[in-house]
């Protein structure tokens, strides 16, 4: 069994780089190889130009934020955060000062004497981050660090993480299966599937110009169509749904269909449309008008319009 194969990846200094993929895609294995917990059967891992492939974790200048945080339950928050410095032999006065600064960075000032089990999930997450970042590693590895938090907290932490990353200027390698998380935080994203990298690019690249059908399907809702022997993707928000006598913009491609389903999702409404040619497409419209208005499209014939520059051809 090969968990990761043929990965050729160069991550720049100071970059927020995300490995995105479904579970079993090999993203965590790749992260664990960089941390040194697993050794590749073949290939090399270099850190700042130095070959670290055979170096054990404690000799690598990387630090990890674990999915389950892995805070030492028998140590206080401050001792947890200061552990890396203690091992390095940093004198206690300087250590205290740096721990204090780290607590401040993750907005936990005053909680240093608590035990991990006296903290909430979000606070523990921040302790884990502070414990890793305080060592100022060359690379900070984050293994689905927000996975255990609820949606609201997760969104707050996404912004906070990004800010902290800019502040400390450390290279972040972030593992997640959440496409929204990947798009909002990353400088670049590598989309992985079955141990292979499907595409590497900026969030805009992988969303607007997916290289493969897998990427198109994994990131956002994608409408894959074949016209004149060409396979291409149109994103739902790029499709204009025309009712009654509305006129498409010039040069747009127009196809008739019937609305099968209307899904109200708060900010927008999702329309599932069956084209007369047989395919099913999803179109999204912002809820600018009265929200109840959307339901009137249910079961009605409509026309869908998109322009060529909003489609992306798949190989």
């Amino acid at each position, binding site marked *: 069994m090969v968990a990761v194969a043929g990965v050729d990846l160069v991550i720049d200094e100071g970059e927020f780089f995300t490995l995105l993929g479904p579970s079993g895609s090999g993203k965590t294995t790749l992260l664990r190889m960089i941390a040194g917990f697993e050794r590749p059967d073949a290939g090399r891992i270099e850190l700042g130009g130095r070959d670290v492939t055979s170096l*054990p*974790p404690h000799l690598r200048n990387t630090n990890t934020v674990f999915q389950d945080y*892995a805070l*030492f339950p028998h140590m206080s928050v401050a001792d947890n955060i200061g*552990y890396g410095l203690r091992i390095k032999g940093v004198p206690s006065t300087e250590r205290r000062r740096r721990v204090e600064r780290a607590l401040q960075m993750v907005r936990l000032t005053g909680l240093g004497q608590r035990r991990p089990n006296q903290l909430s999930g979000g606070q523990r997450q921040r302790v884990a981050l502070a414990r890793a970042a305080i060592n100022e590693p060359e690379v900070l590895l984050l293994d689905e660090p927000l996975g255990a938090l609820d949606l609201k907290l997760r969104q707050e932490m996404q912004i906070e993480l990004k800010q902290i990353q800019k502040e400390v200027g450390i290279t972040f390698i972030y593992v997640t299966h959440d496409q929204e998380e990947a798009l909002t935080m990353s400088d670049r994203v590598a989309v992985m599937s079955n141990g292979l990298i499907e595409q590497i690019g900026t969030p805009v690249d992988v969303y607007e110009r997916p290289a493969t059908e897998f990427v198109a399907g994994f990131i956002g809702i994608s409408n894959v169509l074949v016209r004149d022997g060409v396979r291409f993707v149109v994103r739902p928000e790029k499709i204009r749904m025309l009712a009654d006598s509305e006129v498409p913009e010039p040069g747009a491609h127009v196809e008739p269909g019937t609305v099968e389903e209307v899904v109200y999702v708060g900010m927008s409404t999702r329309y599932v449309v069956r084209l007369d040619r047989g395919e099913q497409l999803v179109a999204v419209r912002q809820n600018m008008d009265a929200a109840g208005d959307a339901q009137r499209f249910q079961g009605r014939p409509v026309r869908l319009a998109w322009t060529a520059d909003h489609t992306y051809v798949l190989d």
Partner: protein
Amino acid sequence: MWARMALRAWAVLVLLFLFVPILLILFYAFNTSNVQSWPIPGLTTRWFTATWNDSSVRSSLGLSVQAGLAATALALVLGSCAAFAIHRTAFFGRDAVSLLFVLPLALPGIITGIALNAFFSFNGISLSLWTIIVGHATFCMVVVYNNVLARLRRTQGSLIEAAMDLGANGFQVFRDVTLPLISTAVVAGAMLAFALSFDEVIVTTFTAGAETTLPVWIFGQIRHGILLPEVNVVVSFVILVTIIPVVIAARLTGGGGTARVPAAR
């Protein structure tokens, strides 16, 4: 409602059944008469002084404590090492080996006793304190092993990785993370091991030489029926000595500890 009351009454009855005989012995230790009959004619502490001055009690108590401490020490080293080995490595037949480690506790004491006795005499080893220690260590090791292994299995594996990740080498990981996390389980295991060794009769009978341990002494006195009041005093003392470590062990392992106390042999 009635079912609840009945259940409570039943629970009380069971507890009485378990503990009234023990309380009775504590009472008899203060009995003025050396005949055990109810009600007792009066209370006295004279049996305590008599027991204290009895040299056979003293020497057998000394032997029990020595054997208990030595067997516990041996069990601590072997049991912890075995638990670490089984937890850390994966190899073919690991479950079978694990079962072999636990078997001495499940094996009837009479079998362990006879087997050890045969082994010692076959190799020309004369029975002494050391043979008792080895005999006790066979089952004391199991409680240490079980406790430590259970704790290792409950410990997040990522904690060790986190320590390595933060720069700790093998020794530092053990000192700062592994040992503190398993320490209470080790102590609990040691206390249970001592309690087990302290009241062991069967294996001791087969592995002891001329000297006897306290439980074996008690056994002999009951058979002869001469020093019954002293036996009551000694038994009261043994109850305290065995209960205290078991209670502490239960506390240390977080309440559930008693569930792992194997049935007394």
